[in-house]
């Protein structure tokens, strides 16, 4: 259904090809009927399961067949011993073959997950499999979801998961899936702050104090800002780091809500303003083609967000930032015409995307 070219049109070929195609249909339809008929009659003998495996290798989304395999496996597992071990091995091998050919098959991923949930597999083997699949396609969300499932089962340390995400980003700044994972992990990693004792956690704390504890520490935010800045300079047209950056600004906004550390916040924001202005200057000479437009759009939009944030954090020092913001949004209507409707609303203050990042 996706990515199949229109030409050459199917069924317009030599008679031999047509005959081969016809045979293929016959074989497939006979296989399906045989498999379904037997499975639905409760026939779970080896020959049937082998035929079922053959069908699934061709078409792993035929969920009914996986369902029957689950039933068959449950019966075998309850008997235990070598038969059970062999059956698990066969199921792992089948799902692996299916995933390598069809890495986006919902039914296959679920079958593998179900298998793991029967506690008959090696979790490390699963991690190796998913890591391989994510090497082949770093944006496969089934893979990322499966990895998350495994990490939860293994009670993996957030630091280790963060290292994996960081390695993916190091390999490719455009890996939005990895940036997304970072947003889940950053707070987990830093909440294990050694300065918060168990007694602190147990004793009653004011909600403001508790909220503070959920803040990402400044030193961590600086580190993250440094990382995205590298990404910006590598390719300012790549949206993934900019989207992550907006979230970092939301983390700064959370700090601002506490009313503390205003100077630190302002200093960080001004640093970011300098980065955006620097990138815009570097892009200034580029011709107005599509790529250059997105290289200008992101620092411009971010600049507008930074000005808005500075205005709300330190209103007295920065009121003239307001004019800059409206001008920026007007420019963005030209630079990024597809989203002119958004920029119009943004310039009126009816598009609030700089929001406090959730804990």
């Amino acid at each position: 259904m996706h990515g199949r070219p229109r030409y050459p049109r199917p069924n317009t070929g030599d008679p031999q090809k047509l005959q081969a195609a016809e045979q293929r249909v016959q074989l497939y339809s006979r296989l399906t009927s045989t498999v379904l008929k037997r499975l639905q009659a409760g026939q779970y003998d080896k020959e049937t399961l082998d035929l079922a495996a053959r069908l699934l290798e061709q078409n792993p989304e035929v969920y009914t067949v996986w369902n029957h395999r689950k039933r068959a496996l449950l019966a075998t597992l309850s008997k235990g011993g070598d038969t059970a071990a062999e059956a698990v091995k066969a199921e792992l091998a089948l799902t692996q073959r299916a995933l390598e050919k069809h890495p986006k098959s919902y039914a296959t991923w679920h079958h593998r997950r179900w298998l793991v949930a029967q506690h008959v597999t090696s979790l490390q083997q699963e991690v190796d499999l998913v890591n391989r699949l994510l090497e082949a396609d770093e944006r496969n969300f089934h893979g990322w979801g499966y990895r998350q499932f495994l990490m939860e089962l293994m009670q993996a340390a957030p630091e280790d998961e963060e290292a994996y995400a960081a390695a993916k980003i190091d390999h490719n700044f455009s890996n939005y899936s990895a940036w997304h994972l970072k947003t889940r992990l950053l707070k987990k990693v830093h909440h294990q702050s050694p300065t918060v004792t168990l007694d602190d956690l147990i004793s009653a704390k004011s909600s403001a104090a508790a909220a503070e504890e959920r803040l990402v520490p400044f030193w961590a935010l600086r580190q993250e800002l440094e990382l995205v800045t590298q990404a910006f300079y590598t390719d300012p047209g790549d949206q993934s780091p900019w989207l992550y950056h907006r979230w970092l600004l939301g983390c700064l906004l959370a700090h601002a809500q506490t009313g503390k550390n205003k100077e630190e916040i302002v200093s960080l924001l001004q640093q970011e303003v300098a980065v955006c202005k620097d990138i815009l200057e570097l892009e200034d000479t580029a011709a107005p083609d599509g790529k250059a437009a997105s290289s200008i759009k992101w620092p411009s939009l971010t600049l507008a967000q930074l000005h808005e944030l500075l205005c709300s954090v330190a209103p007295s020092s920065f009121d003239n930032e307001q004019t800059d913001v409206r001008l920026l949004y007007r420019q963005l209507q030209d630079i990024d015409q597809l989203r002119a409707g958004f920029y119009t609303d943004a310039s009126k203050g009816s598009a609030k995307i700089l929001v406090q990042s959730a804990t």
Partner: protein
Amino acid sequence: MVPPEDLGPRAELLTAKHAAFIKKFAENTSNFEYFATEHFRMSGVYWGLTALYLVGHLDDMDEDAIVNWVLESQHADGGFGGSPRHDSHLLYTLSALQVMALYQKLHLIDADKVIAYVASMQQPDGSFSGDEWGEIDTRFTYIALLCCALLQRPDAIDRQKAAAYIASCRNFDGGFGARPGMESHAGQVFTCVGALALADSLHLLDRDLLCWWLCERQTDTGGLNGRPEKREDVCYSWWCLSALSILGRLHWIDQDALTRYILFCQDEEEGGISDQPEDMADVFHTFFGIAGLSLMGFPGLESIDPIFALPTKIVQQLKPAAPSASSQSSEAPDV
């Protein structure tokens, strides 16, 4: 592929060709595709028939034959399979109800049985499993809520818990994934926004932030992708647009550019719409392309409800027991 200035034969929406394409696809019961898609045929029927309705050609198909086939696909547990030979699943239970709704034949369904099946899929944390085998996905929450709305039994499931589970799947970018912690994807966004709308819980999402992320799905081709740095695909014309429509921010994308992209994905020779220009057309993309055009008010098309993913007229006749987009103003005030 950016559409050229002159779309040539694709400048018009070739509705007659698309209707013929869908009918031809449905009638070909001997090609490989027919057998290979049997397990999700119920959804294929829903996509094809709704597309036909939108272009005014529902009568091209044999209503009685289809209704009988749908009823044959219901199983003892109350759910529907992708076709009579396939196990029950929420995906096909919803598609079955949607097909019956199109024909105004929901009364032929034993609602109690279906509702019991749907309700049995809710987990303690509010999420829904797709079937007895436990796959959890926010799509299934939307499906469950919609089944209940179509059959007028909104309280058969715990709506509050369902909405809370959806909220737990909200990400840093305002979007939603399949499970808590999973990356935002436009398809999941549609189902989560639809679910929250059905559960009267749109206040649980960040409207501006999410709609901004959605409008950033539009690429220079005019088409929409499903996630950052992915290729545009016509089906996102529905997933993104329906969510933007429910949230009153359709004007945040360039509708002319998207319209041209969808039109450019037409197959002017054999009919149908494909995922990208010059790819093979299929019923799925034909439906979502037409549905997207309908949401944008393309002339000559019936209107479609973005929450129910059914024609507005059908939804109005149902007087369903949940908010539909047509029962609210499209420029609903921000919550």
